[in-house]
């Protein structure tokens, strides 16, 4: 089973001293049947005056900390070792789950188990997803009622990958998903929000997943430290089978190269770090993620 060593480093630089700052965030990977957390540690510099962890509504680990000494820089380094189940332990392949979109909607209506309720919540609009006519028009052709939900979602995933260009400069955190649809450009968060908007506007359950993805170094070169970034994709719910993750940025069925940190309705629920600082002037942030397979780490 693949084991990964992940270092996620966030560095803030402030032009003026920060008197006091408080932060919250999601940096600790979830443990689940698919992934086991072998170790996790977090280093915060300067040292916080207080630090807590709690389980949030969606079962993620939320981190809180507060720094009370004046500082002009802040570095948060989260280090995880995670074992991910190989593909044969992933949910049953789509072909064996011929649940139609209609079946899925019907199951959500009838089933009031806790699992089904949490799926039902994921079929509702959230703050960063939108139900508009252009979204409806874009999504509707993918979802005839009598087709398998998984196939429809896979087609949508492929279409987003094909029709949209990855462009970190086209959008920012405040770009609404409707604008992403118009621009046909964006980054993984944008594509995940777009895919979620499409699925949910069809009353189909889908959730936002944040995490890491293993990137392959160009042939003959070694892995670049910190070249990666945190990633985001979409989980769809198949009643009776559970959640299957699809990555619209890369048009992938998520396998053992994806590590899940947190799940939520959208980015707003589980942004990796949020903060409120007093003072600070202008700020710069630099994020580095290094995800390395353990065999590389242990190699001399």
């Amino acid at each position, binding site marked *: 089973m693949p084991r990964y060593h992940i270092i996620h480093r966030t560095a803030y630089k402030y032009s003026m001293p920060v008197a006091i700052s408080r932060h919250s965030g999601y940096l600790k990977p979830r443990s689940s049947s698919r992934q086991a957390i072998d170790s996790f540690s977090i280093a915060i510099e300067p040292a916080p*005056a207080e630090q807590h962890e709690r389980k949030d509504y969606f079962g993620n680990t939320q981190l809180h900390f507060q720094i009370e000494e004046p500082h002009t820089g802040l570095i948060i380094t989260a280090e995880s070792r995670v074992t991910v189940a190989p593909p044969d332990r992933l949910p049953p392949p789509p072909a064996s789950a011929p649940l139609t979109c209609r079946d899925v909607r019907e199951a959500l209506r009838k089933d009031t*188990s806790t699992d089904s309720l949490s799926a039902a919540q994921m079929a*509702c609009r959230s703050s960063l997803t939108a139900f508009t006519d252009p979204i409806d028009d874009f999504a509707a052709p993918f979802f005839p009622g009598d087709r398998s939900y998984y196939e429809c979602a896979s087609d949508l995933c492929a279409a987003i990958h094909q029709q949209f260009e990855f462009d*970190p400069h086209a959008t920012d955190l405040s770009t609404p998903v409707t604008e992403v649809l118009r621009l046909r450009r964006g*980054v993984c968060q944008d594509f995940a929000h777009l895919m979620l908007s499409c699925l949910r506007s069809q009353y189909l359950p889908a959730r936002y997943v944040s995490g890491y993805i293993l*990137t392959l170094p160009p042939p003959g070169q070694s892995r670049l430290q910190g070249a990666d*970034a945190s990633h985001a994709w979409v989980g769809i719910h198949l009643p009776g089978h559970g959640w299957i993750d699809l990555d619209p940025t890369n048009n992938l069925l998520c396998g053992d190269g994806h590590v899940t940190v947190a799940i939520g309705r959208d980015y707003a629920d589980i942004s990796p*770090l949020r903060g*409120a600082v007093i003072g600070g002037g202008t700020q710069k942030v630099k*994020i580095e993620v290094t995800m390395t397979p353990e065999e590389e780490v242990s190699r001399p």
Partner: protein
Amino acid sequence: MPPPPNVAPHPSPQTEALSASYVPGGGYDEMREGPGQPIRPVWSETAAVLDRLGPEGLEQRVETVERLIREYGVSYNVYSDAGGQQEWAMDVVPFLLDGKEWSLLEEALSQRFHLLNLILHDCYGEQRLIQGGRLPPELVLGNPGFLTPAHGLLPQKFRHLHLYAADLARSADGVWWVLSDRLDAASGLGYAIENRQLSHRVMPEGLRGQPIRSLHPFVSDFCDAVEGLSPRHRENPHVVLLTPGPGNETYFEHSFLARTLGYPLVEGDDLTVRDGRVFLKSISGMRQVDVIVRRVDSDWCDPLELRSDSLLGVPGLLQAIRSGRVAVANGIGCGLLQSPAISAFLPGLCRDLLGENLRLPSVATWWCGQPAERDYVLSNLHSLVLKSAKGPALGPALFPGNHSAALQRQWRRRIERHPGDWCAQEFVNKATTPLLSGGRLHAAPFLLRVYLVRHQGGYTMMPGGLARVARGQEGSVSMQAGAVSKDVWVTGLAQVSQRERRPSQAAPTIIRRSAHSLPSRTADNLYWLGRYCERAEARTRLVRVLIDSLMDESWTGPGESIFLLFSALMPLGEMQNLKLENPQGTAGVDPDEAESLLRRWFGEELPGGGLRADIASAMRIARGVKERLSLDAWHTASHLDQRARTLPPGRQTVISDRTLQTLDSIVGLLSGLSGLFMENMVRGDGWIFQDLGRRIERALQMCNLIYSTLTPPCRNPNALLRPLLQCSDSLITYRRRYFTSLQTVSVLDLLICDPDNPRSIAFQLHRIEEHLGGLPHRAQSHALPLPLDKTSLRLTSQTGLCDVAGLAETNRGRRLKLARFLDALASGLGIFSEQLAEHYFAITYRQSTASAARGASVDLA
């Protein structure tokens, strides 16, 4: 304030009595059972009072209420591009509610309050109601009002709702309905109490002549309820009222409530979370807060877990609530049940949870998320009120029946696409109540907002409320849209029931000598209030002397001194065309240019010009600390505001008697205000900061005045001494002290060094030193003097040791020593002001760092 005019003993026999000429509306009417029918018993006494007053008497009362509203500054902010404030409107004719009917409403709404608390506890806890199919998941879990971080936040029952407000309507057949529930941060309670205070002033006969229930017991129950939430369970807990700030629609009532309840009014930036506790930043350091009465909507309360773009909240507040060290009323997330579609499920939930029928029905509601209901709505769209089903913030209600078929089709399509987003309600044909307009009573539809508090395990409804009446039969009852409010009178003596307050149980009165410590923001505001008032006063006196001199013909000769007086008001560069050289070699002033310069000065076209900006700044700050000002001080301030509007430049000549009169009355009002601060403000920290502001500003203005008039060369220097003394209100003091003609040395001594002249610089510095001794830093760190102590000491000794005769010396007409001395003094005062701000105010504003970790530069394909 004069008492209201006496009631005319006999109505004029020719005119028909007001109540007799009242034509009730088509349906149920609050006053009259029907056209030509008798007046309802509950109205008999009030109708008699209205008849005795007659149209003329009432007209005077209307004028009085409008004047009082202006003077009290009762207002609400209007959300529009233009912004601005709108004055409150209250009909002098009250809304009357029979005591028995009120009791029935109280019972019914107590049940609803209880039910809503149980539902909130379930939704933010086990969610059995959703699992059991009693509430649709989409309406709760998919509701923007459902705040996931608030799940599990308040594990105990009955911790969510403490204050509950409901909007009630009476239908034309006389039945009461709940139109909407207000749970998150319900507004209007302050306005309701304010309305009662207005009624006491303008309808005293009505309130005295019959047993009308008082609002006081409710206010005290509310305080008990709020204070009882304190996690530390100690007497006299530290309660604060959290407001979004002066930009909020109902900021007036936040400051009014803070004053009425005796809690400090704070904004999010005033609070900070440390170690799971909430603290108020005050001038004496951090003070732990026990209970927050919240007027900030839930979603804006904590930028770390709720809306990250909120600058109104307190970062970490949810974590502090979780740790159980602070209580918030109402609990975070209550807005969930404000969604109109929820009311469709209340009757069933009431039977399930309480085993009883819902006593007061909601107006019939159909949620389109259910197929049968959606079909009903789609086939009856034209006769229903369409609303957005979810969310604590209610979107505008739509009346499809009033719109074109095309628009109706569009709504129909939107409902079909996303039915769960919509619900429809029955249109209530509303009952009517009399509204005074144009000297007559007209029947008008109304809404009634009532307030209940959970107290000692039971529920109490305020025997009063806020009625809103549309102007016109079909108009809107929103205050934003220009509706009129009414005080609500509940008749009948308080019944002794288990819900009434038991006086025997009342806690022993605690005498509080010193109020809770002053929030830093308030101290900052009071300091600047003092400074702006003083600045306005000094400049008004100066420009008054200047205009007076310009009008005095004997002054045409020594124009040079007038030139120097001008220079105290404006930069020299602006005055190039002012001086006229006379053939005799004496300087004069061009009268047209003087007029034009003053016009531009008043019009604030010159740098630092005018008085209005200073007065406007003082008023803006006064509004922000209104809960600290006595009513008399506030009245004087609003007179001042009105008077300032009549300042030049108008159409009249600036150099005129009329301007002098305006300036006289402004000086009078400003002195009145400073007298009220002096006499009526408790000598606490707040007063000290206000007075510090005054003293610093007065010393600075004096430096400027002496510098401008006495340091430049002047051919007839003594001509300036008299206006200088006039500007500083010291002429009489001088005359009594010296009995001689004016001399520069004596004038300088009087204005700079004389410790007994309340206008002298030395006097201000002594007061500053005294004030510093009374401020909290002494009590805490009696070890080392602070930088601001040193500055103060240095300034006092500089002034005390100065050699006045030396300062008066001239060198080629200039007084260089005086100029240097004044320069040093002014810059020392500036430094002192900065040090004071740094030590006591230090409000630095927060920003968010939400822009972390975005975008993966990964594209594997």
